[in-house]
């Protein structure tokens, strides 16, 4: 049983600067060949202030702030018992290579299904650039609880 008192737990905000090389590596890993994501002149010709991020890159930014593995560790949940159940990103304003993104995460819900065999942990992440909210994401983590004897 994961203690419900963790609902509301919030990480201290930290600032993560979006690294061009990391974005390029990410693009390579996902088969994204458009240099708009790492070459500033290409991005500016297309009307962007700098290189826009692939839609899910903020997950890497989130991990630099506080990975889900670290978050689960602080709850005493073994990473081997979990699955990633759901993920959502809402992009409110463009985030570009070089931006300093302030990130914090918050556990917004913990609930059971299947008579306690499964626990779902819902974690929201908030991203801001110069105090302007630019994105939020929600991850739902599924914990497979050990059967009780």
């Amino acid at each position, binding site marked *: 049983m994961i203690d419900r008192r963790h609902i509301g737990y919030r990480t201290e905000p930290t600032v993560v600067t979006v690294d061009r090389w990391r974005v390029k590596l990410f693009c390579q*890993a996902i*088969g*994204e060949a*458009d240099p708009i*994501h790492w070459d500033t002149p290409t991005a500016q010709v297309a009307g962007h202030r700098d290189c826009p991020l*692939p*839609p899910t890159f903020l997950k890497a930014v989130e991990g630099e702030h506080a990975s889900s593995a670290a978050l689960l560790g602080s709850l005493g949940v073994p990473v081997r018992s979990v699955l990633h159940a759901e993920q959502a990103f809402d992009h409110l304003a463009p985030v570009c290579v070089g931006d300093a993104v302030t990130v914090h995460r918050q556990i917004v819900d913990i609930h059971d299904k299947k008579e306690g065999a499964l626990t779902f942990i819902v974690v929201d992440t908030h991203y801001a650039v110069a105090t302007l909210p630019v994105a939020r994401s929600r991850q739902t983590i599924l914990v497979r609880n050990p059967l009780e004897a």
Partner: protein
Amino acid sequence: MPLPAHSPPATLALDAGPVSAVDLALFAAASGDHNPLHLDAEVARSVGFDRPVVHGMLTMAHAGRLFTQHFGAGSVLRLQTRFTGSAGKGDTLHLQATLQEVCADHLRYSIQGSGRDGASLVTGEAHVRRPAQG
């Protein structure tokens, strides 16, 4: 009201893979998810998988590409996926989107992803900024 000059596509499709060990290692490095479930066959076997498991976030990244390849970088306003199954190393990921609704400022697509033998990997939806009418 006249129809727009360029109607949005009713469907979009993208195939990615087969996902190699190098792809998984690259994604682990780029994303920061170093869970050995995705890299080490023995660890995968120890938790009931016959091969290293493709990161759900790699499948979701391809789902994002499904839209950016057509609508361009910065076009995705919302991307949501539910991971309904898992792909393994060597599988090809098949992603498809179907237009559900044309809203004032965005298009709403549903997303379906499948892997080996058509097994479901993800379902979800995306909101994509409507392209400027030329």
